[in-house]
Each structure stands twice: as C-alpha cells, then as structure tokens.
C-alpha cells in the first residue's frame, strides 16, 4: 500500500484509506545462526511479500547491515562471533538507525530493558508466532517515518486528531474514553497492518506480560461498538489468531 502524506498548511495527514494491500515490500535482514529457523523466517517473509537477507553470525550480520540498506533487522540475541546486542550497538555507533527487532530466549523485563538499551527497537521472546513477528517488524518499518510530524490520522471516513483528541466518523463526533482514544490512535498509526494483543498491551498500557485472559479483546469490542456499530462499513477487523487491524477494505 502507499502512504500518501498530504501536506497541508499546518499539519500532515496520514491517509490510510487509499488502496488495498497491507504493506509495501520490505528488505529484511535476518541475523540468525540456526539455519532452520532462518530458512523458515526467509520463506515466510517472502510469502508475505518481503525480501529477506540472511547472515549466520554476528560479524557477517554487522557487515551486511553496514554495506546494504534494509528496512528492518531481525537479530537473534545469541550469535556466534559477535552477540546480537553488540551488533546493534555497533551499528548505532556507526550511525545506522535501521530499526531492529531482537529475538531472544531470555524474556524477563531486565533482559528486555538491556536489549532496548543496546539500541534495539523491539524485543520478542522465543518461542514466538510468525504472525506476531511479522506484525512487529511491519510496525517497526513504519516507525522510521517521523511520527511527531503526523497530527491527524485518517482511515476512510474515520478521523482522529492527536492534538485536539477529537475523533469523528463521517463528520460525526465519537466520544471515547482516554484509553480508548490511545487504543484507536495506536491502531490508526499502524493502519493497514496487523497489530497483536501483546503489542497493544505493551504500547497502550505499557505492560509487558501475558494477561492470561484476553482482556484486550473486550476493550476492542467496546471500541468497535463506538466506531463501527452505527456505520455500514466496518473498519476495525479481527485477524483470526493474530490480532486486529484497522483498514478501509472489507477483507
């Protein structure tokens, strides 16, 4: 899909309503020493329409990330020759800001903090589902556009103003609770992409654990009741087994 940034006098409007497909093709560098995992990731990424690159150790990964342009990096934390965190911090030192997702078997909060401090942009604990990984790297690639510049999100006839906190659909104002507003804001920021439940819990609530029950679903259905119920065309879609997506097409 194409992102059309309509530049008006004072603000930018990110228009999500334009066309069908989820996301543009990305070049993804996989730095992973387990060949089977790497092959699986490469295949699945290709099927999702992306272009994968692979490096089997830290040094090779660093060299590849420095010599070629990628949209996003998938870095295993434990790698031969040079560990994942050191690859990322070296890249950051050299001024390369390609967003990086760290894959790790270590999932405690302390480990996550260490990973993010080294310059990683997101952290995913093994074992993970591919859909979770895909959702996260697509969100990461989107993040490279400076988000401060966008003050209004628009998906079809649904509009959200980040400054006035006003939400309208077909020009009709919708009243949202503060948390519902942030939920919608996050979904619209990633319009067209799939957003998982854990991503929502992390970014909207700032908690990094598994909430046992699917508390997020109930919040989504409340939000859905407010933004979709009285309108013909549903915008907030459930992606079975993965999460949610806000988009204009009915698929």
């Amino acid at each position: 899909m194409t992102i059309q940034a309509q530049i008006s006098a004072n603000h930018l409007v990110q228009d999500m309503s334009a066309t069908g497909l989820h996301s543009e093709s990305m070049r993804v560098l996989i730095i992973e020493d387990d060949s089977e995992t790497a092959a699986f990731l490469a295949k699945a990424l290709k099927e999702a329409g992306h272009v994968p690159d692979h490096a089997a150790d830290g040094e090779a990964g660093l060299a590849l990330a420095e010599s070629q342009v990628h949209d996003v990096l998938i870095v295993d934390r434990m790698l031969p020759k040079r560990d994942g965190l050191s690859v990322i911090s070296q890249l950051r030192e050299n001024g390369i800001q390609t967003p990086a997702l760290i894959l790790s078997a270590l999932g405690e909060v302390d480990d996550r903090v260490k990973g993010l401090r080294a310059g990683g942009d997101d952290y995913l604990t093994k074992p993970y589902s591919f859909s979770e990984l895909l959702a996260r790297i697509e969100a990461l690639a989107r993040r490279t556009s400076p988000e401060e510049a966008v003050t209004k999100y628009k998906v079809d006839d649904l509009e959200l103003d980040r400054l006035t906190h006003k939400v309208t659909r077909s020009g009709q104002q919708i009243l949202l609770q503060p948390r519902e507003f942030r939920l919608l804001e996050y979904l619209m920021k990633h319009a067209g992409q799939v957003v998982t439940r854990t991503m929502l819990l992390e970014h909207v609530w700032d908690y990094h654990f598994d909430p046992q029950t699917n508390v997020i679903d109930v919040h989504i259905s409340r939000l859905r009741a407010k933004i979709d119920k009285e309108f013909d065309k549903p915008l907030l879609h459930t992606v079975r087994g993965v999460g949610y997506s806000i988009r204009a097409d009915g698929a």
Partner: protein
Amino acid sequence: MALFGSAAAGAIGYIYWQTNVLLARQLEQTIEAETRGLAEQYRAGGISNLTKTVSNRSLTPGNSLYLVTDNEGRRITGNLTSVSKILWNSVGRVEFVYKRPSQNGPEDRLALASVFRLPGGFRLIVGRDIEDRRVFQRVVRSAFFIGLGFMALVGLGGGWLVSRGLLARIDAVTATGRTIMEGDLTGRVPVNGSGDELDRLSINLNAMLDRIEQLMAGMQEVSDNIAHDLKTPLNRLRNRAEAALHEHGDAKSYRDALERTIEEADGLIKTFNALLSIARLEAGTAGKAKNEIDAGALIQDFVELYEPTAEDKNMSLTAKVADDVHLKGDRQLIGQALANLIDNAIKYGGSKKGGKIEVTAGDTGQTVEFSVSDTGPGIPEKDRERVLKRFVRLEESRSRPGSGLGLSLVAAVARLYGGSVRVEDNKPGLRMVLSLPHKTNHNGVSRTQ
C-alpha cells in the same frame, strides 16, 4: 599469648630494675650523708672527736655500720667487730660480708661500705647493712619468675581450652558442610545461643542453607510439575497431530487440526513461560528493577484494564485507594501479580447473578497492602494454604481454563520482595491480600536476623 607474656615480663622487669636503682641511690645518699657528717667532726676535732662521734652513733640501733681502726687495723671504736683483709686493703666503695649477732648466733650479712684512709694510718669505714635489700631483691626476683611461670601456664592452658572449643565448633561446621556435600540438605550447623561471632556465623550459614534447601525443593517441585502438567498437554498435542495424519481428511479438517495444534502449543508456551518466571523469581534473578510505584495509579490501571471483562460477566470492578501510597519495586512484576489476582477474582469470584470486586491499596506503616476482594464462593479454610502452590487447582475450577500458576506467581513475587500473600474470608467471598514492604528488599531474604 607470647606477646602478652613478654609484655608482662617487660613490665615486671622494669619495675624491678627501677626499684633497684631507687634503693641503690638511697643507699649511696645515706652513706654519703653519714660520711659528710663524720668528716666534719674530724675536721673539727681530729681523730679523738671522730672516735667519740662514731662511738655515739654506733650505739643507735639501725643499719648503719661504722669502724675506726689504727694503722695496724685494730678496732678503736665502731659497731663492726672485725675487718676482713679485702676490706682493709681496699679504698672507696666496697661490698663485704660481716657477722652480726642475733638470737640464732652470729649470722652472715651483706653490707656496702666506703673505706677512708686518714692521716696517721687510721682508717674509717662507713657502711650500711644491705642484707635486707638483698633479701628483698631475691623475693622480688623469685616473685617475678614464679609470676611469669604461673602466667605462662594459665595463658597456655586457657588458650588451649579456648582454641579446643573453637576448633570443635569449626569442626562442626566442616562436618555440616560434608553432610550437605553428600547430598543431605537437612544438615545444619549447631548454634549454642551465645551470640558470639561464631554463633552469628552459624546462624547466617543456617539461613543460607535454609534458602538453598528451599530453592532445591522448588527445583524439585518444578521438575515434578513439568513432568506432570506439561506432559499431559504435550501428549494431547501429539495425539491430535497423529490422528490428523491418519485420518485422510480434506484440506479443511487438516487445517482445523493444525489450528488446534497451534492453540495447544500456545497454551504450553504460556504455562512454560509462567513456570520459568516463577522459577526465576524464586531464584532471585528477576525483578531487579526499582521503579517508584504509585500504588493508586497502578491499581487504577488494572481496574481500567479489566473493567470491561468484569462487566461482561455482570460484575462490578472498583478501586479504592488511600492517598499517596508509594512503594519501590519492579512495576511489571507487581503489576502482573495484581493482574493475576484480579483475573482470578473475575474468573472464580462471581456467582450467577454477577458480583462485586473491590481492589484497594493501603499503607500499614511498614508495608503496602494490595487487596482484591470478591463476593463469590470463597475458598474453604482447609484449602487456603494450598492454592498458592504451583498447579494447584481446586476441584470446582478444574473445568475452567487456567494453568494453576496465577497465584503461585503472586506468592513468588511476594517472597522475592520479602512480603506475603494472605488468603482471607471476605464474608462472603474471597479476599486476597498482597503485602509488600515499602523498600522492597530484593531476594526476599530478610537481612535482619
């Protein structure tokens, strides 16, 4: 011991030496004074005046000794009876032995004297009996050696006794260490209750051993639980995959089977993650973050997160917070503990008509207490201890989803921070209280014994 001994010997030796010096000086002075007096008499009245004075002085009892002789050494006057050759031939200060009558006949006594030769062959001997001084010296000397010997004896004996006791106690520690190395974790170092350094060391060692035993028991429990509660779903997963493989179904049934397999795997991963988190909490390797936590904001967060879920089950979820309740700790961990408590209350704390859940945070002075109360069926008294253990699910809840790990994670968080979890009766319903110290003491081991 040697140091103490030589210091004592030095001190006594110094006193002895100083006393000797003092006594010797006194003696000198006395003899000199006598001599000066007699010399004046001699100058004034010659030899006759001298003999008269000596005779007079000789009559006064005391330790002074006088003798005046002619040129052949014959005694003219004085209280000394005889003069030895050495004394006769010497001039100046001389030490000699003389005889003095006493009850037991004449006795040999030591004296110190000055011998002067006077014109005309006369000799004047002025001296002083120093036998007493000699005796005194001997007494002091023997006291010194006996004292030193006694001290050495007592010191060595005492030292031996003390070190024998100490070594016995250290041996006990070694023996305990060996017991534990042989695999028996119940061994403990004996504590005699004296509160001395070694006793304190023993108490701390025992506390450490308690902790290790507890950790080992935890590990044992985890592996038992993994065997029991993870093998069952793994087996189910395997059976399902196997059945799908044999069934020769259409694409849709394969798809269904695969989806169920993934679901089952996800469930397993969740259980596994929860177990790992608990194990890491109990090992004290997690939760090192120290966030300043506003308890009110924290429970507001979770009430807000769970409120729609509760409402779906026709339950009300409310928060009640005293003003300004703060604590330090890992926000994620304490949040997860709180989320588990609320989750439990929503799952099991309702009745057909719904229910009321109240979440509170309060400050008791030493601790911050979070409570989650429901109006559901509660937990019978006999099961209250048990529900905090891993994988324990009460009969009534077995049919509902859940891993049985939620409350054990809460208990593990409480232990990590040196707090506690209480299972109480809400009359009616259940009241779970998570009590955490203000300044969470990481590792859960209380440092004040």
